[in-house]
């Protein structure tokens, strides 16, 4: 929607200014900026930080390259968003550094009881281990009925928190996970 037109507009604007007035710094910056996002794929997204909900455009490259992973090269404010009209704050403007970051976790890790370090673990082993722990804890702590014989189907020895950084859809699935298991201790960031 927005990308092609804006790019064409910028190119046209740069050309006109340069022809009419000779070298102009604004025109050069526009071109330099344009080079940064030339040939990128553009995806509409929303800033993950505070709840103003600024629209962002994520620029990526590498989608059409064999043997390469697509990567984020630039993130900027979405000019079509009535909330931010293309602007971002000092945190939002550096969102690319959040996504493309050498501190990101890239593989599952395990810390055994009493151990002083992390060790790598495969996804399959990690999921199996978690499922086993959940089942053992649940088998021990699940209450089908309370002391008065009322059906309660509850589990209060296993806690679950999160969701505030995640989408509604993931929160909905987390709810199904929670109520399927019967988990009562549950929180998100709303009160912290």
């Amino acid at each position, binding site marked *: 929607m927005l990308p092609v037109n804006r790019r064409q507009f910028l190119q046209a604007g740069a050309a006109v200014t340069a022809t009419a007035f000779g070298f102009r710094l604004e025109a050069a910056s526009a071109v330099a900026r344009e080079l940064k996002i030339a040939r990128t794929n553009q995806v509409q997204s929303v800033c993950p930080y505070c709840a103003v909900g600024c629209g962002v455009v994520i620029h990526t490259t590498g989608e059409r390259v064999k043997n390469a992973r697509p990567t984020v090269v630039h993130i900027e404010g979405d000019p079509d968003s009535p909330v931010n009209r293309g602007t971002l704050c000092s945190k939002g403007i550096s969102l690319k550094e959040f*996504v493309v970051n050498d501190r990101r*976790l890239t593989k599952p890790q395990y810390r055994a009881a009493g151990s002083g370090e992390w060790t790598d673990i495969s996804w399959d082993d990690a999921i199996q281990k978690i499922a086993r722990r959940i089942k053992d804890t649940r088998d021990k702590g699940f209450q089908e009925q309370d002391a008065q014989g009322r059906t309660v*189907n509850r589990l209060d020895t296993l806690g679950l928190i999160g969701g505030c950084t995640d989408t509604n859809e993931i929160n909905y699935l987390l709810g199904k996970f929670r109520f399927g298991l019967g988990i009562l201790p549950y929180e998100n960031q709303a009160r912290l």
Partner: protein
Amino acid sequence: MTNGWCDIANTDVALVMGGNPAENHPVGFRFVMEAKRKRKAKLICIDPRFNRTAAVSDLYVPMRAGTDIAFLGGLIHYAISNDLCHMDYVRAHTNAPFLLREDFSFSEGHFSGWDAEKKSYDKATWQYELDGAGYAKVDPTLENPRSIFQQMKRHYSRYTAEKVAEICGCTAEDFKKAAALICSTGRAGKVGTILYALGWTHHSHSVQLIHTGAMLQLLLGNIGLPGGGINAQRGHANIQGSTDMGAWNMLPGYLRLPRANHVSLDAYLKATTPKPLRPNSMNYWGNTPKFATSLLKAYYGDRAKKENDFGYQWLPKLGETENQSWGYFFDRMHRKEMHGFISFGMNPVANGPNTEKMLEALANLDWLVVVENFETETASFWNAKKLGEKFYPKYVDPAKIQTEVILLPAACFAEKDGSFVNSSRWLQWKKAAVPPPGIAKPDHEIIARIFMAVRALYEKEGGKGMEPLMAMQWNYAQPLTPSLEEVAREVNGRDLTTGAQVPGFAALKDDGSTACGNWVYSGSWTEAGNNMARRGQEDPTGLGLFPNYAWSWPANRRILYNRASNDADGKPWSESHASIRWNGTKWTGDTPDYKADAGPHDYGAFIMLPEGVAKFYTTELAEGPFPEHYEPMESPVKNALHPNASANPCAPVMTSSADAMGTPDKYPYVAITYRLTEHFHYWTKHVASGAELQSNFFVELPEALAKEKGIKGGDAVRVSSARGTVEGPAMVTQRMRPLTVGGKTIYHVGIPIHWGYVGRVRGPLVNNLTPSAFDPNSGTPEYKGFLVNVEKL
């Protein structure tokens, strides 16, 4: 927010209290500046710290942390006693005319019904006086001494400007200046907004604080109008959405989680569906059976039948008075009553109160699963002694911690689809731009894989609670990697007879013929498609509503309670401030918060409430039907209104071996925690630019206190509370003025939150200092206004 970010530009007076949008919501704050520029709006900032919002405000008033109810109560008194209320609004749209029972009373800090032993209230005397038909009795003249208006007038008559000054530490003159500006909106043609954030919620009386703000806005006739409302700015991208999707005591869509005494669906619905309290009340929550039954159909599919109460028994039940919110379950974890814990994108070691207690609690678990973008203090809690260096010297060696930890790498926002809800209640759809790094996976796949693996184990081995586990519907095309579009359609709901997406919650039924995962989101993904992804730029009202951009809950309504922007006859209070208008046959403009074709007199303006009108007075909160000033749980002074009921009598304070409360003789200063523009919570210490711009933890001290202690800017200081200590360089400023409270000079100490022992930059966790004291209604910890001492190192 009742209103929204863009709408703030419509205001005449913006009161910012308990928030600092210039620094913490800078892009949203543009709309305050726009109102100042275009409408000559006034900005008032009331805060213990002269922050950057204060710097551009028309009036700044300093106040002591934790005394906001006294200030707002003073504003209520000021508005009533100076005849500045919007009385036509109050008469038409609030419960001011309702009569209370004769045995309702308040004295010495307690309302009638107080049980000192149980530390709770019997609320019988708080109820309205009812007539034979079960409706509340009213006095439209508001003159009956038992009317809520007269009771409110009497209750807040104690909150004089002088009393406010005595409690809050501001001057009576400054209070009156603020009151005159704020109350200038108490008439048609002028409208004021309130913007707040965690400075209002981080208290042991936070819900009542927001209640007081809402009361003030009702008295001034500012609820439901463009440029008005009471607006929570909210801290996380989807904190609104995750709350919409449930809480410890809630199902999706603010349906209550059943309790053990709700032994059948019928009993549950009887207990949770309100009855109208006035003949003209629409009482929209009367539709609770439709929303609940449709949720059960979404959860349990074909297994949910009328004969089995639509699977109601499979839902877990809370005990009758049980509380499973943060403070309570971490206390249980600390007492070794919990064995396993799963954290999806949260960091309790950093963000929970009393860090050492968090660490000890996690060490008492058998196992912990953390799903994250970055390593966190929680994932590496067992290594706190090494990573946290001097801050956790007492903490034990990893060899003694028997908790197994599994850390799973998750996709970040840019790597998955789905919707976030911003503070304006706009559901905005985003698309995945790139795959996650390495072999990290999106959270929905992680949830699905764990859930399917647990089920497989039960299928193989059998075990407890098989039925509820297996009954939960998980019929996605790819059960291990559900598409979020598929999930979003399930959330919106569909007609099970035709298979079509429902157009909105009005189509939901209680007979099992509709399924809907969250009724307040019904309308977000209809037969017309994904409304959350809409990009329409039109703004037909000119009020910044943008009805075709994204989708706003409920029903794409942009301003809640907008019927109240018109008088009883359906005429706008002012031509410039009505988002809906009655044209004789229907309401036009914003989606009306009212039946679209019902005449102005058909229903009360507040259709969600059983009263049909907004409430000054409510029986739903723990510590009273009217808000009352209580001191923080740790306070430098006794309550000036009733020293024998000083702090909130109903607020829970935990008493584990790791918990302790301080007294002013040892900890004389009032501490507040705050945030910096350059950082987001505990995330951006991993991001290079945030880490470079604000690399170091610091402690902000007032000049006068620093002078008293011989501390200069940059000197190392230790801040201690009854729970723990933090150390760092002092930043000496004039931003937190010494305040005189009850004849004593009170100093504040300000501490930013963003560091921890894992990150590109590291520093102490401020929650080393904070108490496990909570609001009794919401369970929010008291992070603003606790006691500390300061020493030069």
